Protein backbone atom coordinates (compact mmCIF):
# COMPACT_ATOMS: atom_id res chain seq x y z
CA UNK A 1 0.00 0.00 0.00
CA UNK A 2 1.14 3.50 -0.79
CA UNK A 3 2.85 5.25 2.09
CA UNK A 4 2.54 8.99 2.75
CA UNK A 5 4.06 11.42 5.27
CA UNK A 6 3.34 15.06 6.08
CA UNK A 7 6.28 16.35 8.06
CA UNK A 8 8.35 19.40 9.00
CA UNK A 9 11.64 17.51 8.70
CA UNK A 10 13.74 17.09 5.58
CA UNK A 11 13.97 13.70 3.86
CA UNK A 12 16.84 11.66 2.41
CA UNK A 13 16.10 10.21 -1.03
CA UNK A 14 18.56 7.31 -0.88
CA UNK A 15 17.32 6.40 2.59
CA UNK A 16 13.67 6.51 1.52
CA UNK A 17 14.39 4.35 -1.53
CA UNK A 18 16.29 1.79 0.54
CA UNK A 19 13.50 1.60 3.12
CA UNK A 20 10.86 1.07 0.40
CA UNK A 21 12.86 -1.36 -1.69
CA UNK A 22 14.35 -3.37 1.18
CA UNK A 23 15.46 -6.75 -0.23
CA UNK A 24 13.00 -6.84 -3.12
CA UNK A 25 14.40 -7.99 -6.44
CA UNK A 26 11.21 -7.71 -8.51
CA UNK A 27 11.63 -3.95 -9.04
CA UNK A 28 13.37 -2.80 -12.20
CA UNK A 29 12.56 0.90 -12.29
CA UNK A 30 12.59 3.57 -9.59
CA UNK A 31 11.52 7.15 -10.32
CA UNK A 32 11.78 10.00 -7.84
CA UNK A 33 10.54 13.54 -8.10
CA UNK A 34 11.83 16.17 -5.69
CA UNK A 35 10.36 19.65 -5.58
CA UNK A 36 12.61 22.35 -4.11
CA UNK A 37 12.18 25.97 -3.03
CA UNK A 38 13.04 28.11 -6.05
CA UNK A 39 14.33 31.66 -5.95
CA UNK A 40 14.61 32.83 -9.53
CA UNK A 41 15.53 36.47 -8.91
CA UNK A 42 17.50 36.25 -5.66
CA UNK A 43 14.87 38.10 -3.60
CA UNK A 44 13.44 35.20 -1.60
CA UNK A 45 14.26 35.08 2.11
CA UNK A 46 12.13 32.06 2.96
CA UNK A 47 8.97 30.21 2.03
CA UNK A 48 6.34 29.05 4.50
CA UNK A 49 4.01 26.17 3.71
CA UNK A 50 0.67 26.20 5.50
CA UNK A 51 -1.47 23.08 5.29
CA UNK A 52 -4.77 21.60 6.45
CA UNK A 53 -3.86 18.81 8.88
CA UNK A 54 -6.08 15.80 8.42
CA UNK A 55 -7.27 16.69 4.95
CA UNK A 56 -3.67 16.80 3.71
CA UNK A 57 -3.05 13.20 4.74
CA UNK A 58 -6.37 12.11 3.21
CA UNK A 59 -5.65 13.77 -0.13
CA UNK A 60 -2.08 12.46 -0.35
CA UNK A 61 -3.24 8.94 0.49
CA UNK A 62 -6.08 9.19 -2.05
CA UNK A 63 -3.83 10.32 -4.88
CA UNK A 64 -1.18 7.69 -4.04
CA UNK A 65 -3.85 4.95 -3.93
CA UNK A 66 -5.18 6.17 -7.28
CA UNK A 67 -1.67 5.94 -8.79
CA UNK A 68 -1.39 2.36 -7.53
CA UNK A 69 -4.78 1.55 -9.07
CA UNK A 70 -3.81 3.00 -12.46
CA UNK A 71 -0.28 1.58 -12.85
CA UNK A 72 1.40 -1.70 -11.84
CA UNK A 73 3.49 -0.25 -9.01
CA UNK A 74 5.41 -2.27 -6.48
CA UNK A 75 5.81 0.69 -4.17
CA UNK A 76 4.69 4.28 -3.96
CA UNK A 77 5.68 6.92 -1.41
CA UNK A 78 4.79 10.61 -1.02
CA UNK A 79 6.41 12.97 1.51
CA UNK A 80 5.34 16.61 1.74
CA UNK A 81 6.94 19.09 4.13
CA UNK A 82 5.29 22.05 5.85
CA UNK A 83 6.66 24.99 7.84
CA UNK A 84 9.31 27.54 6.93
CA UNK A 85 11.92 26.55 4.34
CA UNK A 86 14.94 28.32 2.81
CA UNK A 87 15.69 28.68 -0.91
CA UNK A 88 17.01 25.40 -2.32
CA UNK A 89 15.43 23.25 0.40
CA UNK A 90 13.34 20.16 -0.38
CA UNK A 91 9.52 20.53 -0.35
CA UNK A 92 8.08 17.32 -1.71
CA UNK A 93 9.26 13.83 -2.63
CA UNK A 94 7.44 11.27 -4.75
CA UNK A 95 8.88 7.78 -5.28
CA UNK A 96 7.39 5.16 -7.61
CA UNK A 97 8.74 1.65 -8.14
CA UNK A 98 7.67 -0.74 -10.86
CA UNK A 99 8.92 -3.61 -12.98
CA UNK A 100 8.54 -1.27 -15.98
CA UNK A 101 10.04 2.17 -16.45
CA UNK A 102 7.13 3.80 -18.26
CA UNK A 103 4.73 2.87 -15.45
CA UNK A 104 7.11 4.36 -12.88
CA UNK A 105 7.56 7.59 -14.90
CA UNK A 106 3.86 8.06 -15.60
CA UNK A 107 2.77 7.36 -12.05
CA UNK A 108 5.25 9.89 -10.62
CA UNK A 109 4.21 12.51 -13.18
CA UNK A 110 0.52 11.86 -12.38
CA UNK A 111 1.15 12.06 -8.62
CA UNK A 112 2.76 15.48 -8.95
CA UNK A 113 0.00 16.84 -11.17
CA UNK A 114 -2.71 15.70 -8.75
CA UNK A 115 -0.82 16.79 -5.68
CA UNK A 116 -0.34 20.29 -7.15
CA UNK A 117 -4.08 20.75 -7.65
CA UNK A 118 -5.57 18.81 -4.74
CA UNK A 119 -3.31 18.63 -1.70
CA UNK A 120 -4.25 21.47 0.69
CA UNK A 121 -0.96 23.35 0.97
CA UNK A 122 -0.44 27.09 0.50
CA UNK A 123 2.91 28.74 -0.09
CA UNK A 124 3.80 32.16 1.29
CA UNK A 125 6.98 33.79 0.02
CA UNK A 126 8.90 36.16 2.26
CA UNK A 127 11.19 38.75 0.66
CA UNK A 128 12.79 41.96 1.90
CA UNK A 129 9.62 43.73 0.65
CA UNK A 130 7.20 41.64 2.74
CA UNK A 131 5.25 38.40 2.44
CA UNK A 132 3.04 37.28 -0.45
CA UNK A 133 0.83 34.25 -0.95
CA UNK A 134 1.79 32.40 -4.12
CA UNK A 135 -0.98 32.34 -6.73
CA UNK A 136 -2.15 29.04 -8.15
CA UNK A 137 -1.16 28.57 -11.78
CA UNK A 138 -3.66 27.77 -14.47
CA UNK A 139 -1.08 25.46 -16.05
CA UNK A 140 -1.40 23.19 -13.00
CA UNK A 141 -5.14 22.88 -13.54
CA UNK A 142 -4.60 22.15 -17.23
CA UNK A 143 -1.98 19.51 -16.41
CA UNK A 144 -4.69 17.47 -14.68
CA UNK A 145 -6.68 17.07 -17.85
CA UNK A 146 -3.93 14.90 -19.34
CA UNK A 147 -4.99 12.09 -17.01
CA UNK A 148 -8.73 12.07 -17.66
CA UNK A 149 -8.78 10.10 -20.89
Amino acid at each position, binding site marked *: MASISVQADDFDITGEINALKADRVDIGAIVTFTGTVRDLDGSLTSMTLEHYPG*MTERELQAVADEAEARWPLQACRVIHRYGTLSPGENIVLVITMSAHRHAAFQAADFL*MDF*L*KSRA*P*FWKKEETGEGATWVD*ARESDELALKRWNS
Partner: protein
Amino acid sequence: MAQLLYFSWVRERIGKSEEQFDLPDGVQDVAALIEVLRERDNGYATAFEDLSRIRIAVGQSHVGTDHTISDTDEIAFFPPVTGG
Protein backbone atom coordinates in the same frame (compact mmCIF):
# COMPACT_ATOMS: atom_id res chain seq x y z
CA MET B 1 -22.59 23.67 15.53
CA ALA B 2 -20.63 23.51 12.30
CA GLN B 3 -16.84 23.81 12.54
CA LEU B 4 -15.54 26.44 10.10
CA LEU B 5 -11.85 26.47 9.10
CA TYR B 6 -9.98 29.13 7.14
CA PHE B 7 -6.55 28.86 5.50
CA SER B 8 -3.99 31.11 3.80
CA TRP B 9 -5.25 34.59 2.90
CA VAL B 10 -8.86 33.59 3.65
CA ARG B 11 -7.71 33.05 7.24
CA GLU B 12 -5.78 36.33 7.26
CA ARG B 13 -8.70 38.38 5.90
CA ILE B 14 -11.20 36.86 8.32
CA GLY B 15 -8.71 37.15 11.16
CA LYS B 16 -9.09 33.68 12.62
CA SER B 17 -8.26 30.12 11.64
CA GLU B 18 -11.41 28.44 12.96
CA GLU B 19 -14.71 28.99 14.69
CA GLN B 20 -17.88 27.20 15.73
CA PHE B 21 -20.88 28.44 13.78
CA ASP B 22 -24.58 27.77 14.26
CA LEU B 23 -26.02 27.35 10.77
CA PRO B 24 -29.10 29.64 10.52
CA ASP B 25 -32.41 28.10 9.42
CA GLY B 26 -32.57 27.86 5.67
CA VAL B 27 -28.81 27.59 5.16
CA GLN B 28 -28.57 24.19 3.49
CA ASP B 29 -25.62 24.51 1.15
CA VAL B 30 -22.19 26.13 1.00
CA ALA B 31 -23.37 28.98 -1.23
CA ALA B 32 -25.99 30.01 1.34
CA LEU B 33 -23.43 29.83 4.15
CA ILE B 34 -21.06 32.10 2.23
CA GLU B 35 -23.90 34.67 1.78
CA VAL B 36 -24.49 34.68 5.53
CA LEU B 37 -20.77 34.97 6.38
CA ARG B 38 -20.28 37.85 3.93
CA GLU B 39 -22.78 39.92 5.93
CA ARG B 40 -20.90 39.50 9.21
CA ASP B 41 -18.14 42.05 8.73
CA ASN B 42 -15.73 43.56 6.27
CA GLY B 43 -13.10 40.80 6.81
CA TYR B 44 -15.52 38.08 5.71
CA ALA B 45 -16.77 40.29 2.86
CA THR B 46 -13.21 40.76 1.59
CA ALA B 47 -12.35 37.07 2.00
CA PHE B 48 -15.37 36.05 -0.05
CA GLU B 49 -15.46 38.94 -2.53
CA ASP B 50 -14.34 36.78 -5.49
CA LEU B 51 -15.74 33.26 -5.28
CA SER B 52 -13.71 32.16 -8.31
CA ARG B 53 -10.71 32.31 -5.95
CA ILE B 54 -12.34 30.31 -3.14
CA ARG B 55 -12.14 26.54 -2.74
CA ILE B 56 -14.23 24.54 -0.28
CA ALA B 57 -13.85 21.27 1.61
CA VAL B 58 -16.62 19.62 3.62
CA GLY B 59 -15.59 16.69 5.79
CA GLN B 60 -12.03 17.18 4.43
CA SER B 61 -13.10 16.49 0.84
CA HIS B 62 -13.14 19.00 -2.01
CA VAL B 63 -16.73 20.10 -2.85
CA GLY B 64 -18.52 22.76 -4.87
CA THR B 65 -20.66 25.64 -3.56
CA ASP B 66 -23.80 23.58 -4.17
CA HIS B 67 -22.71 20.96 -1.63
CA THR B 68 -25.32 20.32 1.08
CA ILE B 69 -24.13 21.06 4.64
CA SER B 70 -25.43 20.33 8.12
CA ASP B 71 -24.75 21.54 11.63
CA THR B 72 -22.22 18.80 12.37
CA ASP B 73 -19.96 19.40 9.39
CA GLU B 74 -16.34 20.53 9.26
CA ILE B 75 -16.38 23.19 6.51
CA ALA B 76 -13.12 24.71 5.24
CA PHE B 77 -12.54 27.72 2.97
CA PHE B 78 -9.24 28.40 1.26
CA PRO B 79 -7.61 29.70 -1.94
CA PRO B 80 -6.62 27.34 -4.77
CA VAL B 81 -3.85 25.14 -3.39
CA THR B 82 -0.19 25.81 -4.22
CA GLY B 83 1.76 22.91 -2.71
CA GLY B 84 4.02 20.43 -4.43
